[in-house]
C-alpha cells in the first residue's frame, strides 16, 4: 500500500525533507549536498540545456514496489488531464526537445496515454521513452496490445527488472512480479523489441534491491544478458543502473530497517564530483501530473517546485528563464552523484 493510503507521515514531502535535513547533516557529521557543491565549485548547479522533456502523467500504478520514489499504487488517483497534456504538446511543438520521457506510476493507466503518444508522434517526436513496468501489459486484456502499440509508434521501452532472479525481484516489486515481467518481456521480444536490427529499443533498469549501491553497469549488463537469454531466451538492448534515492517509500524502508544513517553515509562517501557534469537535472525538465515544473522527478516527489520567477507551471513555460535557473538541491541529490552517478538514463560516468 502507498504511504498516502496508509496516512503515513512520510507521505508528506515536508516530512521527508525534515528527515533528510535532520541532525545527521546539521551536527557536522556529514556535509550537506549544498556544502559539497560549494566545496567543488559547482554551486549553484545550473542547467546545460533541455534535452529531455520528462512528463509524469500520473501516480496510478498496478504495482506497489517497496522502493518507489513516487509512492505510486493502485490507490493513487492523481493523473494528468487532457488539457494539461495539450499544454505539454504546445511546449513540445515550440521547442522539439530531442527526447520525451513518459513516466508515472504506470503511464499506460492514464486513459489519454494512447492519444497523447499519437499527438506527440504527429508533431514529429523522434525519441519517446515510455517507462513501462512490464506487468501492466498482463494486468488487463486492454493492455495486451501495448507491445504492438509501442512498436507502431517506435517507442523506446524502458522497464525495471531489479534482478535476473525471482526472489530478489519479488521482494522489491511484489509477489509474482518476476514471472509476469518475463512473460511481458517475451511479448515485447515477439514483436521485435530488443532484437538485433529491429530498431526497436528495449532497455532494462537495474536498481539495487536494498540499501546498497549499483555495481558497474557494463558488468551487470553482461550478467543480465547471459542469464536472461540462457534461462528464458529473453533479449534486451542496454541495462541502465539507477541508484535508489532516499525518498518516499525507499526512505521509509531505510528508516524502518535502521539503514538511513548508514545509507546516507555510503552515498556521501561515494560522492563523485565528475558525476556532476552529467546529472539529469541539468539536461531535463520534469512536468508533474498537474502541470507543475521541476528540476527532476525526485524534486517533483519532494514538492520542490521551481522558483516563481522562472515560471512554475507548464502554462508559463519560458525556455530562456529555465536555462538560467538555479537547480534546487537537497540531501537526496547524493543518490545521483554516488559512484558512477545515476540518472533516468542510468550511470552518468562511464
Amino acid at each position, binding site marked *: 500500500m502507498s504511504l498516502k493510503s496508509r496516512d503515513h507521515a512520510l507521505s508528506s514531502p515536508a516530512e521527508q525533507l525534515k528527515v533528510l535535513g535532520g541532525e545527521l547533516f546539521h551536527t557536522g557529521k556529514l556535509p550537506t549536498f549544498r556544502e559539497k557543491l560549494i566545496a567543488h565549485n559547482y554551486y549553484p548547479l545550473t542547467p546545460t540545456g533541455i534535452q529531455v522533456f520528462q512528463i509524469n502523467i500520473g501516480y496510478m500504478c498496478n504495482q506497489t514496489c517497496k522502493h518507489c520514489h513516487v509512492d505510486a499504487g493502485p490507490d493513487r488517483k492523481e493523473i494528468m488531464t487532457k488539457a494539461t497534456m495539450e499544454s505539454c504538446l504546445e511546449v513540445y511543438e515550440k521547442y522539439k526537445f530531442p527526447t520525451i520521457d513518459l513516466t508515472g506510476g504506470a503511464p499506460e493507466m492514464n486513459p489519454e496515454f494512447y492519444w497523447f503518444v499519437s499527438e506527440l508522434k504527429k508533431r514529429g517526436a523522434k525519441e519517446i521513452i515510455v517507462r513501462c513496468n512490464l506487468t501492466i501489459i498482463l494486468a488487463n486484456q486492454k493492455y495486451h496490445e501495448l507491445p504492438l502499440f509501442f512498436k507502431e509508434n517506435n517507442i523506446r521501452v524502458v522497464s525495471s527488472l531489479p*534482478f535476473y*532472479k525471482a*526472489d530478489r525481484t519479488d521482494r522489491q516489486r511484489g509477489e509474482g512480479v518476476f514471472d509476469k515481467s518475463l512473460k511481458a518481456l517475451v511479448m515485447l521480444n515477439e514483436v521485435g523489441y530488443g532484437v538485433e536490427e529491429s530498431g526497436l529499443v528495449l532497455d532494462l533498469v537495474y536498481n*539495487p534491491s*536494498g540499501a546498497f*549501491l*549499483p*555495481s*558497474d553497469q557494463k*558488468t551487470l549488463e553482461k550478467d543480465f544478458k547471459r542469464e536472461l537469454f540462457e534461462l528464458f531466451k529473453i533479449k534486451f538492448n542496454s541495462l541502465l543502473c539507477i541508484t535508489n534515492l532516499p525518498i518516499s517509500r525507499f526512505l521509509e524502508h531505510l528508516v524502518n530497517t535502521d539503514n538511513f544513517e548508514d545509507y546516507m553515509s555510503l552515498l556521501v562517501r561515494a560522492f563523485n564530483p565528475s558525476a556532476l557534469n552529467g546529472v539529469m537535472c541539468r539536461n531535463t525538465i520534469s512536468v508533474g501530473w498537474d502541470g507543475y515544473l521541476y528540476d527532476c522527478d525526485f524534486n517533483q516527489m519532494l514538492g520542490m517546485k521551481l522558483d516563481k520567477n522562472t515560471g512554475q507551471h507548464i502554462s508559463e513555460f519560458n525556455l530562456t528563464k529555465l536555462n538560467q535557473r538555479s537547480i534546487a538541491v537537497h540531501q537526496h541529490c547524493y543518490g545521483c552523484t554516488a559512484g558512477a552517478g545515476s540518472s533516468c538514463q542510468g550511470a552518468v560516468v562511464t
Partner: protein
Amino acid sequence: MEKSYYNQEDLKKFASISEFQPNLASKFFDYYGEVFKEGALTAREKSLIALAVSHAVQCPYCIDAYTEDTITKGCSEAQMMEAVHVAAAIRGGASLVHGVQMMNKTKKLSM
C-alpha cells in the same frame, strides 16, 4: 573504552590506523587497493574470495564489508552462501585431515 571488543563504527575508521604508523599503513592500503583491482580474476571473484576468507578468519568487520561488496557487485544470495560454504569446507577439512595424524598415532600406540 567501548563496552564491546567490536564496534561497528570502527570499520569506517580503518584508515585511521595510519595515525600510529603512517608509512606501513600507506604501503598496506596501496597494496590492498592493487589486490582488489580487476586482474586475472574479476573484481567480483575477488570479492567472493574475500567474503569466504572473512568467514574463515571470522572477522565481523570483513563480513559486513564484503557482504555489502558482493551484493553490490551483483552476486546472488546463493553465490554468497556458496562462498561461505567453501570457507566452512576448508575449515572443516582442515580439522578432519588431522584425523589421519590421530589415526597414525593411535595405530602406532596400539598393539
